[in-house]
């Protein structure tokens, strides 16, 4: 690579108080290339790119843009140098429209006033790039997490940057949207845009990447071509081999009892006439496109939303409609899709967050069992290998993947036997995924049942014993593990998707 990089982070370092998060890392982005950052949860990827985006200032080293050393005190400074960023955590204003969110900070004006038609047009154009077809006047708060992610992507794309940073843009997307995004990236690459791409989906690396920089514990480990075999990448990343990415060890469930039974469940406007059951020891996967109604279904079962008709029963006992506490008492544990908005109290400690579901159950005379809660939390944090500075730090400062593990950990502590998982490994690294899968195995092996919604087809295929495919709020079909292939699932999920889009 004789060409001059667009931007280089040169021997940068970053510490937060006593914690060193990035140590002496160098990484460059070249025009027309996609530089991939790879590392476990908490390796420091997001921290690194935030220095390039003007969010953090490096404590050591410097930033070079077009051969010049620069400082990036604000995001605006970065943007002025042509650097646009899609952050891992969504940075949208829920009370504003899609159009205003896409153009935030760059509102088109006419005579000093907001030019609304230009605003809408430019937002529509940005959405069209990634194939999101919704009314741009819709409030972002009314969108599901996947569509919010698409809005965030559209926002960065509309900046016309020379350098585009994408921090796990595909974590919340299904294959369908991911492909649209990759098409855009290919186009941008052709136009000479340099990109920095982060993902825990290893298969995506070879697909869009050029070179891969691997980080471990905030340190540079290696730079390798994107064509490097996945197994080698994993080894660089976690320092060991991972034999089996989907270590599902299903037992024979033909004689097992039904644990979770859902009968003709209907929620007006969201889904209708859903019936299925999950047996002890079974993982039932639910696949579907964004907007198929999977999240609404899971929330209704968990008691988070009320449904219109139908029944939910656990071990033959019908659960009352809309009661989370009753669901938890029956053994249900619910991992919601939006960890930041629904899963965590970000300002509270890791310890507290792990313990919410067991706070009351373990109390004596209404007094919190602090010692017990703490030791249980510590144990689970260790088991899930949650990377943190102390268990008393606020969970908002953990890396995204580690936050996700904490939501999961809450139900491990609660000894839930019926897990409702909505995108359970979103943003989780390969190593930690396997750990989560092992936990799922342990729960099913102990006679538990798992219902898992995932937009990651390999995960659905690799971990489910049986797969339901949802489309438009209905069950479009059921596949056994043996019959299930990507094509089979997608055919059911998207049969008339083209008609629907117009």
């Amino acid at each position, binding site marked *: 690579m004789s060409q001059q990089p667009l931007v280089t982070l040169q021997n940068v370092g970053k510490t937060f108080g006593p914690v060193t998060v990035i140590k002496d890392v160098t990484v460059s982005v070249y025009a027309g290339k996609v530089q991939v950052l790879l590392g476990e949860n908490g390796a420091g990827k997001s921290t690194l790119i935030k220095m390039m985006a003007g969010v953090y200032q490096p404590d050591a080293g410097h930033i070079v843009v077009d051969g010049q050393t620069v400082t990036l005190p*604000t995001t605006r400074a970065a943007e002025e140098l042509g650097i646009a960023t899609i952050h891992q955590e969504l940075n*949208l204003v829920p009370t*504003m429209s899609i159009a205003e969110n896409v153009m*935030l900070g*760059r509102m088109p*004006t006419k005579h000093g006033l*907001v030019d609304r038609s230009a605003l809408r047009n430019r937002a529509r154009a940005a959405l069209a790039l990634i194939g999101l077809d919704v009314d741009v006047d819709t409030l972002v708060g009314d969108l599901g997490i996947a569509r919010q992610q698409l809005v965030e992507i559209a926002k960065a794309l509309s900046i016309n940057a020379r350098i585009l940073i994408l921090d796990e843009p595909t974590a919340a997307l299904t294959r369908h949207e991911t492909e649209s995004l990759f098409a855009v990236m290919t186009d941008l690459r052709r136009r000479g845009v340099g990109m920095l791409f982060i993902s825990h989906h290893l298969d995506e690396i070879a697909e869009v990447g050029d070179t891969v920089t691997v980080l471990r514990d905030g340190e540079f480990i290696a730079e390798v071509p994107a064509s490097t075999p996945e197994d080698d990448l994993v080894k660089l990343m976690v320092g060991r081999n991972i034999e089996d990415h989907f270590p599902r060890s299903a037992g024979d469930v033909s004689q097992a009892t039904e644990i979770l039974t859902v009968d003709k469940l209907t929620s007006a*406007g969201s889904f209708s006439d859903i019936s299925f059951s999950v047996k002890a020891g079974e993982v039932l996967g639910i696949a579907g496109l964004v907007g198929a109604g999977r999240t609404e279904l899971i929330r209704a079962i968990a008691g988070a939303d009320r449904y219109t008709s139908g029944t939910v029963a656990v071990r033959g006992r019908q659960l009352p409609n809309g009661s989370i506490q009753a669901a938890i008492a029956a053994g249900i544990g619910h991992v919601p899709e939006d960890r930041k908005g629904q899963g965590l109290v970000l300002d509270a400690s890791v310890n507290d967050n792990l313990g919410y579901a067991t706070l009351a159950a373990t109390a004596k005379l209404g007094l919190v069992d602090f010692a017990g809660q703490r030791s249980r939390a510590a144990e689970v944090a260790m088991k899930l290998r949650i990377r943190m500075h102390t268990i008393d730090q606020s969970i908002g400062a953990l890396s995204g993947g580690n936050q996700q593990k904490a939501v999961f950990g809450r139900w491990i502590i609660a000894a839930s036997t019926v897990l409702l998982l909505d995108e359970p490994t979103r943003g989780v690294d390969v190593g930690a995924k396997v750990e989560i899968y092992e936990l799922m195995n342990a729960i099913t092996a102990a006679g538990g049942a798992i219902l898992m919604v995932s937009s990651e087809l390999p995960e659905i295929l690799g971990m489910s014993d049986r797969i339901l495919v949802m489309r438009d*709020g209905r069950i479009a079909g059921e596949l056994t593990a043996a019959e299930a292939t990507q094509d089979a699932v997608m055919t059911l999920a998207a049969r008339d998707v083209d008609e629907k889009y117009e």
Partner: protein
Amino acid sequence: MSTTTLPLKRRGLDYKKFLANNGALVGLVVLCIALFIATPDFLTAQNLLNIGIQVSTVAVLAFGMTFVIVAGGIDLSVGAVAALSAMSSGWMFASAGLPGWIALLGGLFVGALAGTINGLANASGKLPSFIATLAMLSVARGLTLVISDGRPISTPAEVSFLGGNLGPVPMPIIILVLAALAASFLLNRTVIGRSMYAVGGNAEAARLSGLPVKRILVTVFALAGLFAALAGLLLAGRLDSAQPQAAAGYELDAIAAVVIGGASLAGGLGKISGTFVGALVLVVIRNGLNLLNVTSFWQQVVIGLVIALAVGVDVLRRKTRSS
């Protein structure tokens, strides 16, 4: 039903949107109908004019408060700043001997200045807006007493004009309308106005999108101060004098008007039209109870219940709609 997925149809969207943005309107209408039935004095041209005049002070204060609440803050100082501005104006005229119109502009300047200080304390000094403006409430009320030595000061003709009539139309109503248009224009059409929603809705996202969050916050509080000054001058004009205790406690009325109008103290939400409806709810209740000659002790009980009901109607309406 569950069939529509993607592009969300707009069935009667505008009507719905209007109601959604002006929830308390239903409460207001119910209140007015009840008063219309209860007393013939309510729905007379004169009484409606009276209501228009009486709502002017609170509404203008509340318009300024809307900016602050939309941007995620709160301003407890508006009542005291209104009094300080009017008193400064009176002092400039009566004691410093400045021409009336300069005293008028001077009063507005004092309000904007007080607001700017609030904004700087909040945005640059990192004081929570509750504390910064509580401190300003105390400081501004104290300065008002110092300037006036606790006595009313009579205002120049230019200020009194604000409380008078322009032909058949009361000036407070004209100013109210102009202030509403200006505030609504600012909030809806200008970049800084739209940015206020972003700052209130998600300050971190606003910052990451390159919005000058500090500058926006300072502007927001400066505007609240300016509107407070206008309200203060309006009130002084109606009384032909600046009163040391003018507008005491009006901050709660102003905040209530904004919240009744559909805004959330969490920020990111709020409309000038909603705020206007909120202010009307408060004023119409009081007007109606005066007309009905409810005894003053019970009056407070009824006012409380009606506020709860007016907002409750909106909550109910939204529930019904969503199910």
